[in-house]
């Protein structure tokens, strides 16, 4: 008895009832392709989010105001920023950048739009990895003086000036004239990143926002760059020390008046959330794969009943139980592997079609994972084998005499 005969018999049985076989295959195809597509989407969004966060730099710590001991919300000023730049207290901090945001009305000729003005210190561009595509940035002197200059985001510039080069133009922000000295390079992000303007923090707070000037200039968030990723824990403690000393108050870890968060923490939190999401999607798809397997088992049981006489004939002319068993198991496995292969092709095709498409404001990013394709294929083969074994045993256990009498 040879394998070609077993496979040949199984193939001809699969090929005889084409509609039935196709419908059975469909169950596995849907299962496998949805596993591949859904996990592809899950992983794609995961890596998109991770890469966005990582592009901010993993050696960055964010310091934001929090509740103080007396229960009021703390606020930062440029004095706090200067305190963090004390290298004797904070030797592991390499740069400190401050920002303070104000919403403002932008007017240029007939165009007007609302956008966020982000007042920043001059090193903000380096620390937070913003690039200037056209024109120039500003320096420390601009921040100290509070020059009336503005750098527009890559979406904001064409919104105000259309196709005209924005650099060198004037724009009115909350009624005050500012000269555009540069345009930022587009940055991938959550949508708002490119529709805003940057200017010296002093200018933004006092001239646009109407707040206090000089060292009392308020700061909404401080970005601290550690000298390296592995020194980040030292930098973390040095921030707490520097700010506590500066406030001349005793250090209360519960209500210090500020929060320090780590970029790596954020990545980790998001990744673990996303892992759950991917597992959840995979489980839903896996269920449909199991349902497909049940379909195979069902059709195999029908097939055994229909072919009882045929089994009896084969047993009479020399087929052993093993041969009958092998025929039905391979029939189920051929169906599940066939469905699995088609499912991988369909799933991969859907992944590529969906990649880059937008559903509302959500950009779909899919990532084809060969490991998941192999896994889905292997799982479908195992499911087919499992679904085939019970019907095959029933076929093999048939009494040849009874089977021959079966009408």
């Amino acid at each position, binding site marked *: *008895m*040879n394998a070609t*005969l077993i496979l040949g018999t199984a193939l*001809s*049985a699969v090929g*005889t009832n084409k509609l039935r076989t196709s419908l059975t295959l469909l169950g596995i195809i849907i299962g496998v392709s949805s596993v591949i597509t859904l996990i592809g989407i899950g992983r794609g969004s995961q890596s998109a989010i991770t890469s966005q966060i990582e592009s901010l730099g993993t050696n960055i710590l964010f310091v934001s105001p929090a509740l103080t001991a007396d229960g009021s919300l703390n606020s930062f000023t440029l004095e706090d920023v200067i305190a963090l730049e004390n290298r004797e207290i904070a030797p592991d901090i390499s740069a400190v950048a401050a920002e303070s945001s104000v919403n403002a009305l932008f007017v240029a000729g007939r165009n007007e739009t609302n956008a966020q003005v982000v007042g920043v210190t001059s090193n903000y561009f380096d620390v937070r990895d913003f690039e200037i595509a056209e024109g120039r940035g500003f320096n420390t002197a601009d921040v100290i003086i509070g020059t009336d200059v503005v750098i527009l985001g890559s979406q904001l510039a064409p919104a105000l000036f259309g196709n005209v080069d924005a650099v060198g133009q004037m724009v009115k922000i909350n009624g005050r004239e500012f000269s555009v000295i540069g345009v930022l390079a587009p940055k991938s992000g959550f949508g708002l990143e490119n529709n805003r303007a940057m200017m010296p923090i002093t200018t933004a707070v006092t001239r646009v926002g109407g707040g206090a000037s000089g060292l009392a200039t308020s700061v909404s968030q401080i970005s601290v760059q550690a000298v390296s990723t592995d020194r980040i824990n030292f930098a973390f403690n040095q921030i707490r020390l520097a700010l506590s000393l500066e406030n001349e108050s005793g250090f209360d870890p519960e209500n210090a008046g500020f929060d320090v968060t780590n970029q790596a923490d954020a990545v980790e939190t998001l990744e673990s959330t996303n892992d759950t999401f991917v597992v959840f999607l995979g489980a839903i798809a896996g269920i449909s794969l199991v349902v497909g397997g049940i379909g195979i088992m069902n059709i195999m049981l029908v097939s055994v009943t229909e072919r009882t*006489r*045929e089994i*009896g*004939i*084969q*047993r*009479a*002319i*020399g*087929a*052993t*139980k*093993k*041969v009958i068993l092998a025929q039905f198991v391979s029939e189920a496995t051929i169906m599940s592997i066939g469905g699995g292969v088609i499912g991988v092709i369909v799933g991969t095709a859907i992944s590529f079609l969906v990649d880059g498409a937008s559903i509302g404001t959500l950009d779909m990013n899919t990532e084809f994972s060969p490991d998941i394709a192999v896994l889905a294929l292997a799982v479908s083969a195992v499911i087919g084998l499992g679904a085939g074994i019970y019907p095959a045993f029933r076929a093999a256990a048939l009494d*040849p*005499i009874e089977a*021959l009498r079966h009408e």
Partner: protein
Amino acid sequence: MTTPVIELNGIKRHYLMGGETVSALDGVDLTVEKGEMIAVMGPSGSGKSTLMNILGCLDTPTAGRYFLDGADVGTLNDDQLSRVRGRQIGFVFQGYNLLPRMTALANVELPLKLTGKGKNRRAAAMNALARVGLEDRANHRPSELSGGQQQRVAIARSLVNEPSMILADEPTGNLDTTSTEAIIGLLQDLNRSDGITVVVVTHEDDVASSTKRAIRLLDGKIISDDTVEQRLFGLSQAASA
């Protein structure tokens, strides 16, 4: 003296039906020599089918011993019995029992494949088809053949493995007179020209009269075992006993 093809010693076959023991065969002794052609007759319920199943190694006796070509079949397991069926026994059924999805040639080739016997299987199958005069129908499926032709394909399948005997169970039960004559003629020819042992189970007297020897079963026992000469002259063993 050569070893008999079939040697049955005190074969009994009991079935349990609703707590009652039914005796389908009740002590059958039978010897069939190589090259014989024998008819097994008897009314329904006489144990014909049970005897047929035991001779065909599809069923095992409750008591007694069965030697096929001198080998005790009672000691064999299921796999070995399957192999004996495939290599030493050629079945011909009343309902032809060809596999509908396969061509005539593939049907004839199947026992060779199942038992892994022979090298040039296709040629051997073609020869067997030619032996029954159906080489021009090799690529037809059973549904494209007449009843007589299907039975000839079944005979070709039964002889392709060069078995010790052909077991034919009511081979003409579904056929008209012309086809019946052709099938019986073919079995006789295989017996006479090729020396194949043939056992035919039948309830038709004219089929039985075409064999040299006929046994009669009743209630699980052999009640007569006659040669054609004895039957012609009314000298039944049972009558003379």
